[in-house]
């Protein structure tokens, strides 16, 4: 128990962006040989002054094989300062690490030795299913009054997906969150506008639709998720669905503005059936006035086109299209709400947009690495063709550094990179005025451990929610 508020909790995004630079990164890694060997959480040295900068300092193996580590998160963060449920003396200390395939949830303590976290609790899949009705836990967010997780579906592999909570103190699953889910069926990501008592959730597909790889029939039929859902955070009821149209397949990562007085956010769409493009949409409340009971609206603000390609260089799934889709699998917004990063896992490109005016994003920077066709190398290893592409992206609190990894999801990795993804994690340096550049000294090769989400020690741009502007 702390005598003063945890120093890594920041009342406002403004204060968070003045935080000192991070020195450790935690990375969830999937074992490509997952049927036999367990997944792991990697600890990477990101302190540029350290002798081991860019090296893996520690590895924590999970107790079982086949978890499919994917996304994860902190037990507590800046939302603990929210005025209606303040408990600022809990610590940002435990990492909640779910297995997306196994539905097992691991709790790791980073305090005794931050470089070698210790597994202190494992919640077995049966308990999660029994208490919440959900399986395949995905996004983890530290909320003002509990730890929240989204889930893809039910124990039989069908829907509905949804949200459930864990107790802040003992991490026991508390039950399903939704009191009334309305038309919502698919689950994936979720996020909050704490200043507006609003939750937002997005759609991928049920476990049966994704666990054996993307199903081309379902995809071309527009059967994957294509809507956003808005919820009353206090009453836990569905308020509104926004359908982007069936051609917009897989509406994934949600990045709301960090400033709690701002009522807008960005969501990425993986692929359009019309032209294989990816897109980023802006949801917003007209007039931004939370006192009005106005409806949320959505507008496409960024479109990233597919690139024509030689069919011979394409995996069987894409050969017929003679093009490589960008496959926008993740986006991330800097804490000052100024720069938006877009991972094009298919084309092997990381884009930076200036979204100072969220309605009119401006492309501010771009870096090529990996890619289905491009196979671009890293400056640290000229000439070595890289596979996989920019995927999970994380931004430092001060917005000066960006980290990203190259693996998506085992069954989908196989379809888009049949040669077998070799894991890597890289870092960008950000020019304060816009523009990005790969750090030549930071190239972490993880081999058969395929890295997914990155979490920074002390918090990052997607880990914390704020109640004060």
């Amino acid at each position, binding site marked *: *128990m*702390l*005598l*003063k*508020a945890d*120093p890594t*909790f*920041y*009342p*406002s995004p*403004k*204060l968070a962006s003045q935080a000192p630079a991070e020195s450790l990164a935690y990375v969830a890694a999937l074992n490509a040989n997952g049927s036999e060997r367990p997944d792991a959480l990697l600890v990477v040295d990101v302190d540029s002054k350290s002798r081991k900068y860019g090296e893996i300092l520690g590895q924590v193996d999970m107790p079982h094989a086949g978890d499919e580590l994917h996304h994860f998160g902190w037990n507590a963060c800046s939302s603990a*300062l*929210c*005025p*209606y*449920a*303040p*408990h*600022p*003396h*809990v610590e940002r200390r435990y990492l909640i690490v779910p297995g997306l395939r196994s539905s097992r949830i691991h709790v790791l303590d980073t305090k005794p030795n931050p470089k070698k976290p210790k597994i202190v609790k494992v919640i077995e899949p049966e308990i999660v299913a029994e208490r919440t009705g959900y399986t395949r836990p995905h996004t983890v967010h530290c909320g003002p*009054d509990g730890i929240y997780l989204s889930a893809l579906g039910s124990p039989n592999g069908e829907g509905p997906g949804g949200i459930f909570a864990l107790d802040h*103190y003992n991490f026991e699953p508390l039950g399903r969150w939704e009191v009334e889910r309305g038309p919502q069926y698919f689950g994936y990501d979720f996020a909050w506008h*704490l*200043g*507006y*008592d609003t939750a937002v959730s997005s759609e991928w597909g049920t476990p049966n639709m994704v666990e054996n790889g993307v199903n081309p029939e379902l995809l071309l039929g527009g059967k994957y998720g294509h809507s956003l859902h808005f919820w009353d*955070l*206090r*009453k836990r009821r569905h308020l509104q669905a926004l359908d982007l149209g069936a051609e917009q397949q897989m509406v994934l990562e949600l990045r709301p503005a960090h400033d*709690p*007085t701002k009522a807008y956010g960005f969501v990425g769409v993986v692929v359009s059936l019309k032209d294989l493009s990816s897109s980023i949409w802006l949801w917003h409340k007209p007039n931004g006035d*939370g*006192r009005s009971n106005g409806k949320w609206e959505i507008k496409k603000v960024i479109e990233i086109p597919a690139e024509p390609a030689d069919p011979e260089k394409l995996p069987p799934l894409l050969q017929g299209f003679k093009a490589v889709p960008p496959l926008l699998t993740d986006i991330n917004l800097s804490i000052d709400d100024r720069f938006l990063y877009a991972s094009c896992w298919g084309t092997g490109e990381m884009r930076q947009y200036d979204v100072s005016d969220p309605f009119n994003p401006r492309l501010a920077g771009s870096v090529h690495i990996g890619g289905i066709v491009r196979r671009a190398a890293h400056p640290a290893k000229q000439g070595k063709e890289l596979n996989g592409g920019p995927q999970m992206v994380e931004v430092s609190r001060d917005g000066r550094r960006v980290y990203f990894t190259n693996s998506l999801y085992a069954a989908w990795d196989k379809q888009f990179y049949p040669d077998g993804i070799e894991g890597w994690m890289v870092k960008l340096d950000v020019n304060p005025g816009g523009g990005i550049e790969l750090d030549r000294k930071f190239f972490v090769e993880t081999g058969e451990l395929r890295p997914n989400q990155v979490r920074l020690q002390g918090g990052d741009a997607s880990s914390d929610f704020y*109640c*004060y*502007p």
Partner: protein
Amino acid sequence: MTQRWPWTLLALLGAYHGLNPGMGWLFALALGLQEKRRSAVLCSLLPIAAGHAAAIAVVIFAFRAIQDFLPLKSLRWGVAAILFALGLYRLFRASHPRGAGMRVGGRELATWSFLMASAHGAGLMLIPVLLAQPMLVMHHSMADTMPMPLARLSIAAIVLATLIHTLSMLIVAGILAILFFETYEQMGLKLLQHTWINFDLLWAVALLVAASAALLF
């Protein structure tokens, strides 16, 4: 009025409750910042104070109701036991009402404040003061010189106690909320981040102290 110290103590406890960010000044500040209006801070403080007052009054009236059935000694032990248990519980868990949020009207704020004060044992913390002899005789007309049978608190005393406590709480909470609101542009909330001591712990200790006080006075 023979002795003033219980009233002073009630006011001081009010100031102490006002100081705790969890009792409402922080909520009022956040609502003011969300709406970017100082008046929103002030408008939020009133229902928060009302909820706090209600929580205090309910506990005191409940105490008064059982006064008739229990001898003073059992009352003291009972109050001490409850305070002690609550204090111990709060050492380990900082629970708070669920279902609150940032888009709340006056009635919701008052309810929140009522629940928050009740869950924290804000009213209970005052009972040992009310158990003190001077308080009990104060409004007992023509206090006889017999060895004291437990005198009932008069309605007037309860109302006055609630008012003094709440007013003191409101003044301290108001000063803090406005201070932070006015310095927000220059300082942000840096001060909050660095001065937010563990009130939950302090609170638990206060409950334990109150438990001992119930037995001693």
